[in-house]
Every structure is written in structure tokens, then in C-alpha cells.
């Protein structure tokens, strides 16, 4: 139905054309889901914008490109004609639901626009249609929601409204650009189910753009892998997951953290996607490929058909083996009885809600509400939960970056809560933090050397210039950066390198505990693998303990010794990684685990789907916080908060139905 031939588009900068998508061709059949997969910067979104003809003003589509939709050439249509195609026959949903709805228009107005434009519906008829649409995308009480504004909706609901808007014109093809990347796993599962259901009901084709192999496995029938503006492999679902042929595809799989790779170093793709103005002339992957041959540096490979429906652009004809496991790194399985290095008990962080003229406190946001944790030296505790459950707040409260409202944080026997600033500074040596966003965590105005040395100066470890420079050089080496990096500024580095700098900064004061706040969630899979390997190696060498805050179960499986699952400011289940992942007992843990899309062909077990989204911590439900979404909830859950039940020495659950 959609036939793209030799699409080539780019962006002009300083009267120079930077080609972002270079001659890609693919087709999407009616009723099919075609996934475009690739890392960031590979031209996936530019392709989608090109198809919709929604490129920014400096975007150019080269002559010779062709986008045919149902036999109609889209690139020769006038803008006015294109407007009747957009929204009516081709629709698009975007990555960030929070910014793709207009905040000052009610939901009904925004959906109504599409109806007026494409179906000529107004008044009561339009309203009936809108209610039907909202019901179709699973929004409860659609009559009321129509008159609400986007800020009154949760993230998942906004994405549903976006889908309803996209469906309003009854399109034949839906382009979904990373539709679930900004959402939590349980909500992602809901949205993916919805899209799959809608596709079956309406026979609509979907062009799915994603970087997540799990989403691909859940949704796609055919997959196209993009790399640096080129399509490198197109395969059916079965071929893709069982017989990936392109070294890039194979490397993507090998870089995924997974329970089977536990204790091994992850395969990484060295380097990064080449910049638009420095594209290699021949095979664009040659510089990072582990199968690179001389021919790869000279001639750009042509399309080669491997089997029916499976084609790739690669000179290499070797076996479709995923590279053998790299040398085993022994997982430091220390005895869990080793004394707790950090112990947290009944930690509470409440933020007051102030209202009125005199700023009286009218309520509390219970971001963290009684959390207990222990971490032993040299071990990794993963703190898992959806966004807004308070896991980052726990991390910051441990470091006393946010003052805890109550409870105790003991570091090697010293109580940190309520400690005077001077004594606290001494304790800071032992704990450091690595932040989520490597672009926000480094001051752009300081040199890398100054950034790394900051902690040493502040804590009085290496004050003298020369000693400090030596220490910085050693740290840079340790995190795998050249010593010359010290003289450069953060903006000269890629995301992965910046995260290495952040790690070096934290290590500079030789801490025993690192709080890692989603350190890989802003990075691509291949770079994530590099960082995870680095963290693992550092633990081997230095015996650092990690508190690993994450929502990514694959990372937990790969890295963590112990897991604590958090929901709405409380820990609902904790135990050894094997215990939690194999025998989860809390209904929330089970739902969370089953919502994670696995990047495999295995038939997905009937997932437990949670209804709705996590409530606000300003107004938590009575009794067990989880009861409104719990499939097993009964009266007792609404009335009383469950006690901790110890299933084994290490495994503890807070649920009424476990005891």
C-alpha cells in the first residue's frame, strides 16, 4: 500500500545538504505492521516526517525519491492536496504525548478538528463520533473526558487521545513514531495491546518506528533495520529474530542485557553512529563492524536477497551466528551475610503542598513513605519501579540532597539524617551519584578535567594541581577515555562518553557506594552495553556497591544481586534477583514483569494487564496502595496496610495474600 522508492532527504545547513536518509526503499502492505528499527540519529523519524511531508523548513527531499501511497505519488502533490491526505489516509502519532496535544484546547476540540476537516462532521454527529472514538481507544467515561483539557489526563490517556485523533480520519496507514518510549512498562503494554487490537479491527497498516527490540517482537510482522540513514536489512519477523544476518542487527541483539548473559561482558558496538557530515563513503557500518573486510571500506554493498522476504546490504556472507560469548567475568557472589554497608530504615520524604495567602500546608506529597533497604559492600541493589514511584527521591534522600522527613540512613554505622553540614561533608566521600541525563549532569562551561577534579577539591582529597592532574588522568583511563579529554569541554563528547565522564567524576572521591539513577536510560542499546560493562568492571576492580535505580528489567537481570520493587513510595517486594524474577509474589511485581516486552519470538505468555495508572502520591489510596489496580484486591486491602512477610531470609513481600 505504501511504497517508498529510493527516498533521499536531508537538511540544509550553511548552504550544505546533510543527507539524513540516503536512498531507502521499502513497502508496507495493507494490514501489516512494518517496524523501522535503529539507534537514535539513524534517520528513522526523518523518514516518517518525509512520508508525511512534515519536514522542518530546512528539510529537502531529493529528486528521484518516490513515495507512493495506494498508487498515488505523494511527493508531487500540492500542499493543499497533501492536507487532505494527512490525517485522512495517513495519520501519525508522536513520541511525547505531553507535548503533542495543545494544552489550551479541550480534547473534544482537538479531535473535532480532524472530523470537520476530513469527514465534515459537526455538532451532535461529531460528538457522537468522538465519544465512539474515545471508547474505542479504551478511555472510560468518554463523555466527560471530551470536555477536559490535556493537563487533566495522565500520560497514558494522552497517548490514547492522540491515537483517537489519529484514528478520527479513519486512516489506512498509521505512522507510530516511538509511541511508547515516554511511557511506563505497564502503560506501554496497554498502548501496544490497543494498537494491535485496532489494527485487527480496522485492517490498518502500521509503520512503527522504534529502537526497542521488545516492542518490535510484540508488534511487527516485518522489520527494516536502519543504520546511518540507510536501510541495511529487511526481514520477516521469524527471520529477524532467528536468523539476523547483518552484523549490525546481530550486534544489537548481542548488546542487550539479559539474564543469560549474566556474568559475561556484553558485546558492545565500538564507537558511535557517524555524524551526518562525516558519512563514510562505502559501507557506513564498516568502522564499527566486527566482521569488517577490506572490501567494506571501498564499495558500498548492494542489496542481496538471502531468502524470500529477507534481504540485506552487506558484503559479509558468514554464518548467522551471534558472536560467541565474550570472556566470562566472574560475578562477585559475595556472601549476603556480609554486614550491611548502608542501611535505610523507615525513610520518609514528604513534600508539603502549600496553598493560600499565608502558604499554609494543606497536605503532603508522600514521595517516599517508609522505605527500608540494606546494601552490603560490593553488591548491587536494583530499585525498580515505574516513573513517579519515588525511586529517584530515595536515591537523593540517601545522599541527603533532599532532606528526609523522617527515618534513618546509616552509613557504616553513622546516622546521616540530621547530621550537621560539616560532618555530612566527611560522609559524602563514601557515597556518590550518577545521574540519568548525561547532557544535564555536566556543566557545559567547565572543562572535563575541572569537572572531575571538583569533588577532589571540595572534599580535600587531592588539592595540588599536579597531583590532581595525575589523578584525573588515571580516572579517565579507568573509564576508558583518552587522557587528552581533560582539556576538552563536555559538548565535544557523545552521550556515552559523557556518562563515562560522570562516572569518573563520582569515582574521583573513591566512594564505596554509587547511586546510579537510570544511568543508561538516555542511551542507545549499544552504548548502554558499554556503560553496563564499565560499571560491572569497576565493581570487580574497586568493590563499589551500587544502588541501581531503574525501570529496565533487562538491566536488573544482567547486573543486580538484589532487587527491591517500589510502588507509590513504598517497597512492595524485595529479595535476591533470582527470587524476584523467578518467583515474584506480589501482584505488582508479577504484572510489571509480564508487561515487559521480551525481544524474542517466544509466544508471549498471557500478560497480566494492570488497569489505569499509578495514582498521585499526594493522595494515595487507603490501605494497600496498590489495591485500585490490583486484580486480586479485596476488602482487607482497602482497609489495612499489609505487613511485611518474610518468605525466606532474603525475600520479603508486602501483600495480604502472601502470608
Amino acid at each position, binding site marked *: 500500500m505504501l511504497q517508498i522508492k529510493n527516498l533521499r532527504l536531508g537538511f540544509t545547513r550553511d548552504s550544505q545538504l546533510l543527507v539524513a536518509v540516503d536512498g531507502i526503499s521499502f513497502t508496507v502492505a495493507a494490514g501489516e505492521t512494518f517496524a523501522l528499527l535503529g539507534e537514535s540519529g539513524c534517520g528513522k523519524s526523518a523518514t516518517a516526517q518525509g512520508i508525511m511531508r512534515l519536514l522542518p523548513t530546512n528539510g529537502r527531499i531529493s529528486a528521484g525519491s518516490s513515495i507512493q501511497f495506494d498508487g498515488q505519488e505523494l511527493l508531487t502533490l500540492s500542499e493543499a492536496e497533501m492536507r487532505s491526505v494527512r490525517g485522512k489516509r495517513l495519520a501519525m502519532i508522536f513520541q511525547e504525548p505531553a507535548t503533542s496535544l495543545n494544552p489550551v484546547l479541550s480534547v473534544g476540540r482537538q479531535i473535532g478538528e480532524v472530523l470537520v476537516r476530513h469527514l465534515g462532521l459537526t455538532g451532535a454527529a461529531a460528538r457522537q463520533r468522538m465519544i465512539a472514538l474515545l471508547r474505542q481507544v479504551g478511555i472510560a467515561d468518554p463523555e466527560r473526558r471530551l470536555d477536559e483539557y490535556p493537563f487533566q489526563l495522565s500520560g497514558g490517556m494522552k497517548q490514547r487521545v492522540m491515537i483517537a485523533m489519529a484514528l478520527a480520519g479513519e486512516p489506512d496507514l498509521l505512522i507510530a513514531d516511538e509511541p511508547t518510549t515516554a511511557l511506563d512498562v505497564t502503560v506501554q503494554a496497554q498502548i501496544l495491546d490497543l494498537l494491535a487490537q485496532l489494527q485487527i479491527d480496522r485492517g490498518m497498516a502500521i509503520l512503527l518506528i522504534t529502537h526497542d527490540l521488545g516492542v518490535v517482537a510484540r508488534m511487527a510482522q516485518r522489520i527494516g533495520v536502519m543504520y546511518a540513514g540507510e536501510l541495511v536489512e529487511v526481514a520477516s519477523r521469524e527471520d529477524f529474530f532467528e536468523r539476523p544476518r547483518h552484523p549490525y542487527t546481530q550486534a544489537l541483539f548481542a548488546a542487550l542485557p539479559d539474564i543469560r548473559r549474566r556474568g559475561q561482558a556484553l558485546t558492545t558496538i565500538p564507537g558511535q553512529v557517524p555524524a551526518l557530515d562525516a558519512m563514510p563513503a562505502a559501507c557506513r557500518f564498516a568502522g564499527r563492524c566486527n566482521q569488517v573486510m577490506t572490501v567494506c571500506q571501498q564499495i558500498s554493498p548492494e542489496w542481496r536477497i538471502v531468502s524470500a522476504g529477507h534481504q540485506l546490504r552487506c558484503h559479509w556472507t558468514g554464518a548467522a551466528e551471534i558472536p560467541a560469548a565474550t570472556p566470562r567475568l566472574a560475578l562477585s557472589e559475595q556472601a549476603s551475610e556480609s554486614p550491611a554497608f548502608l542501611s535505610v530504615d523507615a525513610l520518609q520524604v514528604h513534600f508539603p503542598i502549600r496553598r493560600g495567602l499565608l502558604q499554609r500546608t494543606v497536605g503532603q506529597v508522600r514521595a517516599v513513605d517508609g522505605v527500608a533497604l540494606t546494601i552490603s559492600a560490593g553488591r548491587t541493589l536494583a530499585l525498580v519501579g515505574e516513573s513517579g514511584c519515588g525511586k529517584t527521591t530515595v536515591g*537523593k534522600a540517601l*545522599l541527603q*540532597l533532599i532532606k528526609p522527613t523522617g527515618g534513618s540512613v546509616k552509613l557504616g554505622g553513622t546516622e546521616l539524617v540530621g547530621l550537621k*553540614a560539616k560532618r*555530612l*561533608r566527611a560522609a*559524602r566521600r563514601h*557515597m*556518590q*551519584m550518577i*545521574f*540519568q*541525563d548525561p547532557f*544535564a*549532569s*555536566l*556543566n*557545559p*562551561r*567547565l572543562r572535563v578535567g575541572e*569537572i572531575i577534579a*571538583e*569533588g577532589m577539591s*571540595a*572534599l580535600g582529597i587531592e588539592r595540588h594541581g599536579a597531583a590532581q592532574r595525575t589523578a584525573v588522568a588515571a580516572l579517565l583511563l579507568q573509564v576508558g577515555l583518552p587522557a587528552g579529554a581533560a582539556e576538552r*569541554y563536555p*559538548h565535544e563528547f557523545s552521550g556515552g562518553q559523557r556518562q563515562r565522564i*560522570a562516572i569518573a*567524576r*563520582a569515582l574521583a*572521591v573513591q566512594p564505596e557506594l554509587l547511586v546510579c539513577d537510570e544511568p543508561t536510560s538516555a542511551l542507545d542499546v549499544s552504548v548502554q552495553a558499554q556503560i553496563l560493562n564499565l560499571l560491572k568492571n569497576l565493581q570487580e576492580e574497586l568493590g563499589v556497591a551500587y544502588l541501581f535505580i531503574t525501570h529496565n528489567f533487562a538491566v536488573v537481570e544482567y547486573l543486580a544481586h538484589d532487587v527491591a520493587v517500589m510502588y507509590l513510595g513504598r517497597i512492595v517486594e524485595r529479595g535476591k534477583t533470582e527470587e524476584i524474577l523467578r518467583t515474584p509474589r506480589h501482584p505488582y511485581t508479577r504484572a510489571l514483569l509480564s508487561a515487559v516486552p521480551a525481544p524474542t519470538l517466544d509466544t508471549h505468555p498471557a500478560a497480566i494487564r494492570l488497569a489505569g495508572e499509578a495514582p498521585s502520591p499526594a493522595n494515595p489510596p487507603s490501605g494497600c496502595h496498590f489495591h485500585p489496580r490490583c486484580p486480586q484486591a479485596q476488602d482487607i486491602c482497602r482497609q489495612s496496610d499489609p505487613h511485611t512477610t518474610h518468605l525466606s531470609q532474603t525475600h520479603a513481600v508486602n501483600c495480604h495474600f502472601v502470608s
Partner: protein
Amino acid sequence: MMGFEIVILWSDILIWLLVAASGGLAILIAKNPPLLAAWRRVGANRVGMAAATVLLAFIVVGLLDSVHYRLQLEGKPGTQPSYAIEVLSALDAMLTPLRTRNEKTYSEPFATRLFAKESIDLPGQGSIRDYPRLKHGGKHLGENEAAVAGDVTTTALRAAALALVAWLVLAALAARRVASGGSGWQKIWRGETDFAWNAVLISVAIMLLILVPLFSLAGQYHVFGTDKVGQDVLYQILKSIRTGLIIGLVTTLVMLPVAILLGMTAGYFGGWVDDLIQYLYTVLNSIPGVLLIAAAVLMMQVIIDTHPQWFSTVAERADLRLLALCFILGITSWTGLCRLLRGETLKLRELEYIQAAQAFGVANGRIIVRHILPNLMHIVIIALVMDFSGLVLAEAVLSYVGIGVDPSMTSFGTMINNARMELGREPVVWWSLAAAFSAMFVLVLAANLFADAVRDAFDPRAA
């Protein structure tokens, strides 16, 4: 050789301190690659560089007018030398003909006769009422007053030819600097240079073509006419430039530390400190600005009038009043920038690199200086250049309502204030207002365009 005594006015000190500070800042910027890159982007902006060239001309005039001296009066040898009561500047010395060749009253631009009829006594013929001949305007023409148009055209053309030659020399120097040989020209005209040389050269060409003929004509004529007391309007315009620059620059200097300090403190610490500072600027903002300034200026006027012994010359008194005005304007105008900086600090405070610094136990003061201030600099620079034009205009408004600079000091505001009466009479005296308006318009437009270029270059979203 007549002796003289250097007079250092307070505003001169501030102006030259500012020049020194910008020199120091330039050295700092040259050492800091991100800042240097941003200023390079300003340098590549054609409109911005054209505006900067014009601005530079104004600044040169202002600086020339900021070197003051008093001439020694002729006295008996051996006695204590005494100095003239009048304080002159380097600019005055250069413009001596313009300064001294005063007429009796209004005359039109390029006129040879006064604008008003007077009774003239002709020996033997009684008195008649006619437009009297000017003492200086078109004097070299003698009786041949009809030749003005021809004379003006030839002088202007000759001067324009001279300007063209001067420009060619300048352009050749620029071309040499870009690249040796003929390729420099090509590079400049095709806009291939990193620095917007073509914009600078074109604006220099336009300025030379206007200014050189203007000043060569100013020797024989009053090119912008004369005012009520017969002073040359061109001279007044040139003297007004310094007043405008001081108001624009010194005020920012007064306001900047307050705004930066309070803005960052409020944003970083939050809590009651934030509340206090917010109340402070909300209160200041809610008092009508002109009233507050008027009250302060009037109080200061009383103080100045009751302490005549403080000032040895009129210029010193006027200067102090000008500085006080800057100070008052600064005190009332820091709120906008402060609010902006508070908001930005609130945003920065939550950034992860600040938290990382806090996790190391870095002291608050150090975090503010090392992490917050450098990341606010772009806002400060943008505000600085944008406020400049606003303040020049504010001075005009304040002088117009009579609470601006000292009446003895020339400024765009006082000129416009005088024009109130001139526009009311018949026939209308239009040249004074027109000249003040055009000069101020060019100054403010150039400052605004330059501010735009700076904002584009420093805006982190664009970088």
C-alpha cells in the same frame, strides 16, 4: 602654548573604567572557548556587525567627549595660574569652530540669514525689517547668497570623493588582512569570511559618504541649523551622544550587580530569602516608575542646590546630577533582569550537575560562582545590550518632563524638550527636533540590532 589642567569628572572615571573592564573581559573571553565561539557567531552576523560599526562611531564620539580639561587664563607671570571656569573636552577642542560660531537665534539648515525678521538700521536709509545676514553661516560667499546650492553641491561632491578614497584605502587594508593577494577581495564580497567584513565595509562606506561631506560643510554652514540662542545643532547632537552613552552604560553598571546578586540568591536558596527578594521587587515594580524617579531627582536637586561649595564648576554639578540620575534609574530598573535571573536559577538549581556538586559537599557560594553564574552569563549579556537602548530612550522621556539631566547639559532629552516650544510657533522650527530624533533613532536602532545579533549568538537553543 597655553597651559591647561586636566579635569576628571566622576562620569569620566566610570566611562574609562568601563572601557578598561571591557578590555579585561575581552581577554577573559579570548581564553574561554565557548564564549569566544559565541562572540565569533556575533562577528559572523552581518546585520549585527553593521550595527556594531555604527555603534562604534557613536562610542568614539562619546569617549572623545570624556576627556575634560580647563584652559589656563592669561595672567601675570609669577602669580598662581588661574583656569577658565568652562570645562572643555577633547571633542570640544576638535569642534571649536562649531562650538564658538554662534548666531543670534534660530536659523535654518544651510541658511545665510536668520529665521526671524529684525529691525536693521541702514545708515542713511532709516531702519527696515528684514532677515539679518548670519554672522558665520555662508560667510565666505559674501553678498553672493544665491550661490549656496552650487557651493554646497561642489563641496559635498569633493568631500564624497575624498571619502571614497579613504574608504578604498580601508577596504584594501581589510582585504590584505583577510588574505594576501587579490583573493581577499573576492572572499569579502562573496561573504566567505568568518567575520562579516562585507557588512562592516558597506556600513563604513555609507557612514563615510554621509559624515565626511557633512563635516566639510559644517565649516561654512550650520548644516542642521541653529537653536534659539544661536548654537549649532550639529554640535549639540554630538555633545548629546556622551550623555546618552553614560545613561545607557553607567545605569546598567549600577543595576547589574544588584540584579545578578539578588536574582541568583532568590533562585538558589528559595524559601524566605526568595520571598523577601520577590516582595522587594514586586513593591518597587508597583510604584509608578516616573513618580519614583521624579521624587528621587527632586530630592537630589535640593541637596545639590544647598551645597554649592561642593562644585567648582557648572560641569561638575551637571555631572553629579547625571550620575545621580543613572543611579536612580539603575535602582528602579533592576527588577526585570532580577526576575529573569531568578527564574533561570530556579531551573538551573534542579539540573543534575548542580546536584552532583552538592553531593560532593561543594559550598553554596562556590556552586553559585562556578556553576550558576557562568550559565547565566548569556542572559546578562543579552539584557545588558537590550537595556541600553531602553535607557537612552528613558533619559529622553525624563528630560522631557523636566526631571532628567541638568539644564546646562546637552542631551537628546533636553533638545526634544526645547522642541516643544519650537513646534508651537509659526513658522515651525523643525530642524532641532528632526536632527535629535534622527541621531537618537540611529543610535537606538543600531543598539537594538546589535542586541538582536548578540541574543541570537548566545541563545543556547540556537547554539
